[in-house]
């Protein structure tokens, strides 16, 4: 049996975990918030902390435990591994069940894959974007468990950045990374976004530098874009960034043929974005007028 721990702060990845669990065998999904369309057995708990995780783990004795490579999964998984001593694999992009688990992990900054065989029981922290969340949707059978343990870690406040446009829901997102080189080039991206009826976003370095507000950040510590097209301009495609890219079509422009962003792109353009954009914008303007 597979025990899935839903992600507390980023609900969507929970569906991906469920999609994976379904392929592995019987499963139960533990969540601390209301989900009305998770397929299968759902255990609703008041809150998710390591004590709850430990208790449910002891109760169900699963052969495999799935967490998301996301804020709460990354805290709870290693804690459970530390307490129980059972094997733990991170950055999992593929997992199969058998006598042992067969796992593939993406490591070394996305430069290396490693195939592993893992004894049961074991813990997996699964990357986002490798399993179809829709496969995790369906009709839930919810059971409430009154598990409430005091934790040694207590949330006292959530600080939200002031909201403007919601890039996570925009159909077209034009996103800039460090490859744009200079703040002034953001204007080019904005122009492109405007011509395509989209919005502008950026990688973390861009936001860190204050070139765009925090609400425009794509990636693990930013937002997940889920629209139709994501245009990555001068973004290398670090794992943490790519985790937030769930748009159906990724178009990437990068000078580096080997840039990891091309690995998730449908169309890759090997070019200097600062040379390409002005020309592209010009052509789009012509078409519009």
């Amino acid at each position, binding site marked *: 049996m597979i025990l899935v721990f839903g992600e507390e702060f980023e609900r969507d990845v929970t569906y991906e975990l469920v999609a994976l669990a379904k392929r592995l065998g019987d499963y139960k999904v533990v969540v601390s918030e209301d989900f009305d369309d998770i397929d299968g057995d759902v255990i609703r708990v008041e809150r998710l902390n390591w004590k709850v995780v430990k208790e449910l783990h002891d109760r169900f004795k699963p052969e495999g435990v799935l967490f998301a490579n996301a804020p709460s999964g990354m805290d709870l998984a290693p804690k459970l591994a530390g307490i129980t001593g059972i094997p733990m694999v991170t950055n999992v992009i593929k997992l199969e069940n058998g006598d042992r688990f067969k796992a593939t992990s993406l490591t070394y900054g996305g430069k290396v894959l490693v195939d592993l065989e893992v004894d049961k029981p074991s813990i997996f922290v699964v990357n986002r974007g490798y399993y179809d969340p829709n496969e995790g949707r369906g009709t839930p059978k919810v059971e409430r468990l009154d598990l409430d343990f005091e934790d040694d870690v207590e949330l006292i406040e959530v600080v939200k950045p002031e909201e403007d446009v919601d890039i996570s829901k925009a159909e077209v997102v034009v996103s800039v990374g460090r490859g744009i080189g*200079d703040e*002034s*080039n953001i204007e080019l991206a904005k122009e492109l976004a405007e011509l395509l009826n989209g919005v502008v976003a950026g990688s973390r370095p861009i936001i860190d530098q204050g070139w765009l507000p925090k609400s425009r950040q794509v990636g693990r510590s930013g937002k997940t874009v889920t629209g139709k097209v994501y245009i990555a301009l001068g973004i290398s495609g670090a794992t943490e960034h790519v985790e937030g890219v769930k748009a159906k079509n990724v178009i990437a422009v990068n*000078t580096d043929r080997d840039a990891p962003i091309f690995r998730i792109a449908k169309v890759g353009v090997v070019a*200097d974005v600062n040379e390409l954009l002005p020309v592209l914008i010009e052509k789009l303007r012509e078409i519009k007028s």
Partner: protein
Amino acid sequence: MDMLLNRLKELTNNKYFQCIQCGTCGGSCPYGAYTPYTPRRMILAIRLGMVEDILNSNAQWLCTACQTCTSRCPSRIQITDGIIPALREKSLLEGKVPEELSTALINIMRYGNPFKESPMKRDGWAKELDFEVPTMMKKKSAEVLLLPECFGAYHRRCKQATKALAKVMKILEVDFAILGREERCTGDHVRLCGEFALFEDLMEKNMKVFRKYEFKYIVTHDAHAFNALKNFYGLNVLHHSQFLHDNLEKLKGMFNELDYTVTYHDSCYLGRKNGIYEEPREVIRSIPGVRFVEFKRNRENALCCGAGGGGIWLDSVMREFVKVRPAEDRVREAKEVGADVIVTGCVLDIPMFEDALKVTGLDGEIVVKDIAELVLEALEGG
């Protein structure tokens, strides 16, 4: 404090206290109107024991080492190579380093270049050429050692200038080679930023490599590398404008006509610092069809591009004080005198001015070319 005073004595030949408070320096400085501490006020504050006030104001970072103040100071005080780096050193030691600069310094220390690029890829630009550029490691000796320095080796745009220079050398049938992977930052910016130990470390490592090989002289298109190699490493080095000038008779016979109105930007480390004014001008003038116009502020009075002395990694600091960067003023000046090409002598100028052209919206009207690029164009026929 003692350390600072000792450093000041050493770097200014004990002259920093001879300041007569005339204010020439601040009046000459591109940042004079914005900075809380002009060199004059810095010296005054040091005298009054108010060094921390200077450091807290960040004024020590508001200098792009243009040498204007130093060249005009009636008391001949080494402001650029002395007062400023000494203050910066103190700042570094106190851990107060602007972030961009800090990153560049860490990278230079670790990888020998500010870009966090692999030293193995330092010859990447050469591989983009359709002929082989030999390395010293293979060749052991050559007449000319071509030294692209970090920007010339890694920076996308600056590499174009490096490649142009290599092509010109090939056309001239010069016996030249590069250090390739053995090359590392020569460290002039590092020194001007007050990281003296790193500068000496780089110099020591570079000298070891230079000593392994035989060459008559080094040619570089990086004015800061030129300055360091000439005045600190004590090596036989030519700026590429001098090299082109030395070969001018041969080149003239091969030049095709170009239809440009060209102005020439005197880089601080060619002009004010090292007195090279005429060679690049003569090279440009000898290209048929080229109309040469001077910037209003030229030669000793040329305005800095803003990259020097680590300025390329101080943009955020600058922006806090200065609304219009010097490079923006500079490209507007080029427009005023009717130039359609700004020819530069230091690779750092290129990204500075190209950026400024974008910022000022002059990018359609004016282009920036390294002098080697202009020469190559004339050789290849426009």
